[in-house]
């Protein structure tokens, strides 16, 4: 069949990985939140921390299972759709992903079981320890996968032998230039995203007038955490941007829709980038502000899109708009967290329905920001799959377009069923609320993540 396999393979990968990233984002944040709750429970001895920890653990279990299931698919897609990439970069990316898989298994085989099913079976401090270990473990998992991704953005520590990238210095590979920034930015994003989910659930209970103690705790913790971390994330993002400017200047040019590098960059608030004529339509911008942000000097220059030929530019619209979505949500998070702090200070937080109501429905904004952020960085790397070393077009498997299309349809169909069930199910757990049913398993110890939630039905 005569369908372009490259575009379809990219769509397929974008689809499966976008679905996947939702769950690790949530489990990284949620495991840390549960660990925090448990430490507070251990420290203060107050029962509602315990109820909350158990409640969120059920939701954690479902999300973790979804993350594992959708992750398995990805580990095989590198081969089915991107075999030339696997051959070219397998010697470097392979071991890094291998360590990610091993870390995930290690968790599943050890502390996860205690965390999900050990409530009444192990001493309290051991359970707290297991939760902390799971939170640390999800971070380790993120460490390896982000290292692999960062190497694809800013490769170093390798040599090219017979057209294949081989490792020379593992330390340089793992800690490549963009890795520390990406790791900080992504893990902070995971925590921030989760804090808005917690905040939303707290607002939901507060409005519904149930689980008052738990709702208060969740609102305070969510708002308090977001008020500190959302501005921090802005700072980290800024640093990440400066790092990108140094190593991938064209990605920055696309983010700012900055065409002409011979003038200082304007901060474009809105525009419709016209890639054909190499300019912005309907532009609203603050002159020189982008140069100010990126170079801390209003008259400084940074490379524009026109500094490279069109075939070496990323898809400008995708990068430009996704970046604005991400930053927009980030600013909304800062604003709403600060406003929450203000209400808290005025002792009106629990009564202000017109604040609680939108917060109740804002649980998803962090996920959208995360996906938008990944769209920026992955689209911004194009047309390269490994920046400067291998083009995406040269990375594709020798497979027919029709085959990629038919499997794409299958993935969409199966994922739609599975994940809508999953989300429906999580929502049902939230509707039931904390302390709904805290009976211990009556026979045996189910070790499956999903069963930890189902058990309570």
């Amino acid at each position: 069949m005569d369908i372009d396999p490259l575009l379809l393979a990219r769509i397929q990968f974008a689809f499966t990985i976008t679905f996947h990233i939702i769950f690790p984002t949530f489990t990284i944040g949620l495991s840390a939140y549960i660990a925090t709750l448990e430490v507070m429970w251990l420290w203060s001895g107050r029962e509602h921390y315990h109820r909350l920890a158990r409640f969120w653990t059920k939701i954690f279990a479902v999300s973790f299972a979804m993350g594992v299931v959708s992750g398995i698919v990805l580990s095989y897609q590198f081969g089915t759709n991107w075999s030339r990439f696997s051959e070219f970069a397998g010697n470097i990316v392979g071991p890094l992903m291998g360590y990610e898989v091993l870390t995930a298994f290690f968790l599943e085989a050890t502390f996860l079981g205690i965390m999900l099913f050990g409530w009444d079976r192990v001493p309290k401090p051991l359970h707290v320890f297991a939760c902390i270990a799971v939170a640390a473990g999800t971070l380790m998992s993120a460490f390896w996968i982000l290292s692999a991704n960062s190497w694809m953005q800013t490769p170093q520590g390798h040599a090219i032998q017979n057209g294949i990238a081989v490792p020379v210095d593992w330390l340089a590979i793992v800690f490549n230039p963009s890795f520390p920034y990406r790791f900080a930015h992504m893990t902070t994003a995971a925590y921030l995203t989760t804090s808005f989910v917690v905040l939303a659930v707290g607002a939901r209970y507060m409005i519904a007038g149930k689980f008052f103690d738990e709702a208060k705790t969740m609102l305070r913790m969510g708002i308090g955490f977001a008020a500190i971390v959302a501005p921090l994330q802005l700072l980290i993002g800024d640093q990440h941007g400066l790092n990108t400017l140094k190593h991938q200047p064209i990605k920055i040019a696309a983010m700012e829709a900055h065409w002409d590098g011979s003038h200082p960059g304007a901060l474009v608030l809105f525009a419709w980038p016209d890639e054909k004529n190499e300019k912005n339509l309907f532009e609203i911008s603050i002159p020189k502000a982008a140069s100010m942000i990126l170079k801390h000097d209003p008259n400084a220059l940074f490379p524009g899109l026109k500094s490279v030929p069109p075939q070496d530019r990323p898809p400008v619209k995708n990068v430009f708009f996704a970046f604005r979505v991400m930053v927009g949500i980030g600013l909304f998070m800062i604003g709403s967290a600060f406003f929450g702090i203000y209400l808290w200070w005025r002792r009106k937080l629990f009564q202000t329905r017109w604040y609680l109501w939108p917060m109740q429905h804002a649980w998803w904004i962090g996920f959208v920001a995360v996906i938008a952020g990944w769209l920026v960085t992955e689209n911004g790397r194009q047309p390269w799959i490994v920046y400067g070393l291998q083009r995406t077009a040269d990375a594709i498997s020798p497979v027919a377009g029709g085959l990629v299309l038919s499997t794409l349809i299958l993935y969409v169909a199966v994922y739609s069923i599975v994940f809508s069930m999953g989300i429906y199910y999580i929502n049902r757990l939230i509707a039931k609320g904390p302390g709904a049913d805290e009976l211990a398993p009556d026979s045996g110890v189910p070790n499956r993540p999903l069963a930890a939630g189902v058990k309570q039905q």
Partner: protein
Amino acid sequence: MEWYLPLIWALVIGFAVAMYVVLDGFDLGIGILFPFVDSDQERDQMMNTVAPFWDGNETWLVLGGAGLLVAFPVAYAILLPAFYLPVTLILLGLVLRGVSFEFRWIAKTSKYLWNFAFAGGSTVAAFMQGVIVGGMVSGIKVQGTQYAGGSFDWFTPFSLMCGFAMVTGYALLGATWLLMKTEGAVAEHARRHAMIALYAVLFFMAVVSLWTPLEHARIAERWFSLPNFLFFWPVPLVTAVLSFLCWYWLRKGNDFMPFWCAIALFFMGYSGLVISNFPYLVPPTLSVWDTAAVPASQLFALMGTLFMFPILIGYTVFIYWIFRGKVREGEGYH
């Protein structure tokens, strides 16, 4: 180049695949047998015998896949495009059957849909695994270090037959597992199914043993040339003895031994495959050495893997120990 590193990795991956085939084999087998029992009550009981294990079983598949990318990126880059559709169908089949374990319990009126997803997902995954084995034995068209065949090269009478063979093999594992783990109606059905599956497995084993050497000169030479034959002749003999024992214990009403015979039969089939194809990872052209990652990569990843192996095995043993014994009707983890 350190010649032994690829061999160690081949052992590691070979072990992971063997673990996967045996462990996930019986729980896929449960799904394959799902349509052949009378009531949802029986199905509940069948599912409960594997509920605590299935996700642990599937970790071995991920280990095999990730291991292939880590240690043999060239083989990974050839085999996955070559078996594009079968691999995708296995993954989706496993996703569907995996979530059926949970959603089937929540579902009230739509239970039959999840029965269907569980049986369908399991059967498709098993069938496609057999197809891949058959396709590998038949040989893969390679140019340089990339796959050079078409989208449906795997679609041959031989590999389809291997698909059916795998389904019956897993059904045998599943039925003998149920015999060991249940009582009552489920066990009675399982005994009958095991017998049928055993006959089918023997039939397919005979066909494969004749068909493969007749079609592939390299495999015929591997087995029947001297001195190889002096070493390999016990393989068919042991297989025959094991088959007889399996049949005998099924007849005798032994609950325990048929399962272990079925595992041993699988092990013999696996050895046959290894004997036929070693050292080729992409038969008939590329060996484990041709497809290996550079030593620096293999070594780096091996350290973590060797650390994890005892933990994974220990965890597997622990879980099976915790959930030992028979699962009775109405009993389960839900």
